[in-house]
């Protein structure tokens, strides 16, 4: 039986899709096995490269234009739905979320933020200490305490 031109094209297209999918699957397996994604993400997060690149990209004038074009293109929603529904994306996200490197980086960021908040609170209360004291002393017409005039920053900042 002879295949028509259309049949040959369909056959080739199916084979090509199948081969591409196999390559994609095996590449993804290799990447996940080598813990490449979580290592790279951990390094990028802790080194601050991600923040620097994000700032550079966000401030570029062409970024706005490209983003608008992309969001308004008809194929974008379709592609997004397919990606979000894909099993591979679930695997990648799970792998990243469970990686020690990413968890460490997130923990460090949380600790840093908590310390920053506590430091800010200390600065503000130390300033309030001095203000309250000045008010009380002015009400009682007393001289300032020796330390009040030259109060070192309790945060050392």
């Amino acid at each position, binding site marked *: 039986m002879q295949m028509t031109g259309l049949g040959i094209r369909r056959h080739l297209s199916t084979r090509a899709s199948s081969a591409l999918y196999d390559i994609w699957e095996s590449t993804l397996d290799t990447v996940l096995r080598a813990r490449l994604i979580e290592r790279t993400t951990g390094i990028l997060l802790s080194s601050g490269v991600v923040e620097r690149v994000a700032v550079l990209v966000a401030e570029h004038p062409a970024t706005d234009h490209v983003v608008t074009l992309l969001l308004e293109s008809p194929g974008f929603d379709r592609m997004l739905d397919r990606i979000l529904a894909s099993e591979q994306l679930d695997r990648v996200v799970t792998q990243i979320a469970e990686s020690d490197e990413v968890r460490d980086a997130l923990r460090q960021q949380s600790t840093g933020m908590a310390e920053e908040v506590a430091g800010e609170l*200390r600065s503000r209360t130390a300033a309030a*200490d001095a203000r309250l*004291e000045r008010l009380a002393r002015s009400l009682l017409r007393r001289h300032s305490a020796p330390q009040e005039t030259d109060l070192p920053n309790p945060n050392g900042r």
Partner: protein
Amino acid sequence: MGPAALPVYAGLATRGVAFVIDAAIVNAVAFAIAASASLALSIFGVSLDELPTGLSLAVGAGGWIVLNLAYFIGSWTLAGQTTGIRLMSIRIKRTNGDPLSFRRAVRRLIGSVIAAIPLFAGYLLILVDDRRRGLNDRLADTVVVFLTEEEKRHLRPTSL
């Protein structure tokens, strides 16, 4: 080695915030204990509501007082800091720099209660004292100072 830095005494606002944090911690723990006790009693078919009011009050108030005694005296004696005080990077010590003994910590806690009775007037002394000492500090011969950079570095591994 340079001369030792002068101590920076903590004022009313800093100490007030530290106290609020400590009060929140103690009350949260008290609430957790009461909830656990209630749950445990419910297994035996006893409800806290069924207990006589006097007994409930006595146990509740007694437990709360014991918890406060343990928290404040324990923290002051063992570390010179409660959690709230540590968060504010301050520390309680004797005026001569020594840490608080158990007896002095008890005296300070009693002083804290006495200072609070006349509408917290005993704490207003902090505003006019040269070393920012309240009535409780005067009674126990203590001061509350900000941690030095070296002390902060020393404490950092276990801090928040």
